[in-house]
């Protein structure tokens, strides 16, 4: 039995038992963040807040949603949208947040790529982030099935069909995933379970892991400068805050984060009230009809670039290219052979590689939605080939890079 003395305050009482003082230091007041950062460093907090919005709005929706092929559509569009007080608000928050969270994820990812924040001890930050990206994608897809509209049904059909793996004809696998020959009750139930239980659990665990991977290597900074965190922290603690190159997570970093978050929330709620259509496709307001294929089937915007890598090729080649697109970002820390963990504008060719990748992915995104006809499918094909080419040349151009000396 450990020895406890009588505590003089609630704080002390808790500190004796769960060491909140140490926790506070490690996670907040002495968690050192470089001072030289810009608002892009707040995207993590923006994502945490958006995930919070998704979780809370999701809980409210879950109280009224019915995972049944006959009831699902009306439980969303009638019960939640018309009968439940503010049900429409929760649904629009949920739908818009599901779309906007990917915008922020992409900004967060490309920030990491631009500033080289996946290198030199930060590889696990990148890898855990990529795992989060994949899990968020699965979460978004499974959630998209739930209103059981036309796009839910047909997107579910098309995406699960991919698992037949072209000429391998793994139809048994497709049926196993669906629990039926076509998407039906079994399909809806299991995607419901994935969406509200298993995937959120995985996401929560991965968020914890992602934070954990960040603690030891610390956050990168705007110039890619290597900081002696102990020395700078000592300066900070000695009261020389102005000279120190670091700030504390709370309240220094947090106060800046919250300002960025507040601007984001103005933008977010503007979308929720005045511009939600982009996140809620009209096609999905037609109830699922297995006998009527919609004229255009396309995924939500955040999947379009990888969809377009699948589409311009023949089935087997397309699937291989699609598989390539799904996993290649994981390998970034290992394909980048440069010794420099510096922002792209200090790295010569890599700077051009970065912007080529951004522009190519935007082109792929646009072509992924447009009907695959004429000039659009040609542009799509070249953009897909460019995407693959960019990743092939990455090790070569980064190997050629000279070490940047400060």
């Amino acid at each position: 039995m450990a020895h406890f003395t009588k505590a003089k305050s609630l704080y002390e009482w808790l500190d004796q038992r769960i060491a909140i003082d140490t926790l506070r230091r490690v996670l907040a007041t002495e968690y050192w963040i470089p001072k030289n950062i810009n608002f892009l460093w707040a995207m993590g907090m923006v994502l945490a807040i958006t995930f919070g919005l998704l979780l809370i709005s999701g809980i409210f929706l879950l109280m009224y949603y019915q995972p049944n092929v006959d009831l699902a559509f009306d439980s969303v569009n009638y019960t939640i949208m018309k009968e439940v007080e503010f049900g429409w608000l929760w649904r629009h928050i949920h739908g818009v947040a599901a779309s906007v969270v990917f915008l922020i994820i992409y900004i967060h990812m490309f920030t990491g790529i631009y500033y080289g924040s996946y290198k030199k001890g930060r590889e696990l930050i990148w890898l855990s982030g990529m795992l989060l990206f994949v899990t968020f994608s699965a979460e978004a897809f499974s959630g998209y099935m739930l209103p059981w509209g036309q796009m839910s049904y047909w997107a579910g059909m098309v995406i699960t069909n991919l698992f037949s793996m072209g000429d391998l004809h793994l139809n048994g696998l497709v049926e196993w995933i669906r629990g039926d020959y076509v998407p039906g009750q079994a399909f809806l139930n299991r995607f419901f379970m994935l969406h509200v239980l298993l995937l959120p659990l995985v996401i929560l665990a991965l968020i914890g892991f992602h934070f954990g991977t960040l603690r030891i290597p610390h956050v990168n900074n705007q110039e890619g400068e290597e900081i002696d965190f102990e020395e700078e922290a000592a300066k900070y603690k000695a009261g020389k805050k102005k000279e120190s190159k670091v700030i504390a997570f709370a309240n220094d970093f947090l106060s800046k984060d919250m300002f960025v978050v507040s601007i984001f929330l103005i933008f977010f709620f503007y979308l929720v009230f005045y511009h939600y259509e982009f996140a809620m496709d009209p096609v999905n307001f037609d109830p699922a009809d297995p006998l009527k294929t919609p004229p255009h089937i396309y995924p939500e915007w955040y999947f379009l670039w990888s969809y377009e890598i699948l589409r311009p090729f023949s089935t087997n080649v397309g699937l291989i290219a699609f598989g390539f697109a799904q996993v290649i970002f994981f390998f970034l820390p290992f394909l980048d052979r440069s010794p420099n963990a510096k922002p792209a504008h200090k790295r010569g060719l890599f700077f051009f590689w970065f912007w080529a990748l951004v522009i190519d992915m935007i082109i792929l995104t646009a072509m992924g939605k447009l009907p695959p006809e004429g000039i659009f499918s040609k542009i799509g094909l070249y953009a897909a080939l460019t995407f693959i080419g960019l990743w092939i040349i990455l090790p070569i151009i980064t190997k050629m890079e000279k070490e940047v000396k400060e």
Partner: protein
Amino acid sequence: MKRELKILAIVVTFTLITYYLVEPFAHSQMHKHVEFRNFKYDGKSDIEEVEHKIKVAKEHKEDTTELEKKLEEKKKFWAEVDKISKLKGDATAGEGVYAMCQGCHFEGATNMGGVTPPSLEHAGALYDKKYLIALVKNPAMAMNIDHKFKDPSMHPMGSVMSMVTSDQDIANVVAYLKEKKAGEATPVEAYVEACGRCHADRYMKWTQVGFVPKTKENIKTGQDIEALKFKQKVAEEQNALADYLGKLPPDLSIIIRARSEDFLKTFIEDPQTQLPGTAMPRTGLTQESYDKVEEFLADSGDAKRHERAKLGPIVLIYFIIFAIFAYLWKKEVWRDLH
């Protein structure tokens, strides 16, 4: 600060470009453009439709004699409609003609040839004058579903062609409708009379044979015989409609979110333009009556739009105030750091 704004400008620019490409641009490419004619019914779109068919047939080197005949027929028909619209109608004389209409059009009418004749209580207010003239003259042509009938008198309302034959009678009965049956319709009445005999709206509890009545189940058996009887009546009406139209017309509960405003307007004005070959007739709504139907559909599928419009500014003001406080806090904390 300057650097942060530059980065923000880059992020915003790329976001907006992506948005433009996947939303407005992609949708402009996916949906064909149909000219909106302000709910004026002069047969122009009908004639252009046939002309287009002739063009396509010629490209495929197909025989166009039938189509050429159709084109002449349509041109002639709409020219005659135009001529009748210039006659001065006499509402009093029209009342006598209208007595014939009441043989089929009355409250509680039953299905005739696949569809129940609508109430004409607000016909003068709901439908365009030229459209009504065309409708009395040749219903299949007016509705632009003449492709479904070899003989236009086979249309469920085709018998009118042998009942009201003179141009003056047509002008008179339309004048009667425009004067005596022109009371302002509510959004519900507009929907019920113009759309509701074919399209149910379950979110508004509307069926093809009326609103779902309030009934009570027998407490001892849990059975509600009145409700079952009503369900049977609906099912029979739906069968008749589906037999006549080829399929059951869709429930319009949430069509307001499923189609763009542009689609709804052009489709209702002339269904053939958006869905060639559809069994849906043109209904001849005026702009004002379309607005009423749209309001009904919005009450059905976007019921909380007024609440949304009211709450939006409040929430935004809240977050603007929140942003001001966040900024002040940041300034306060960072005073020691810079």
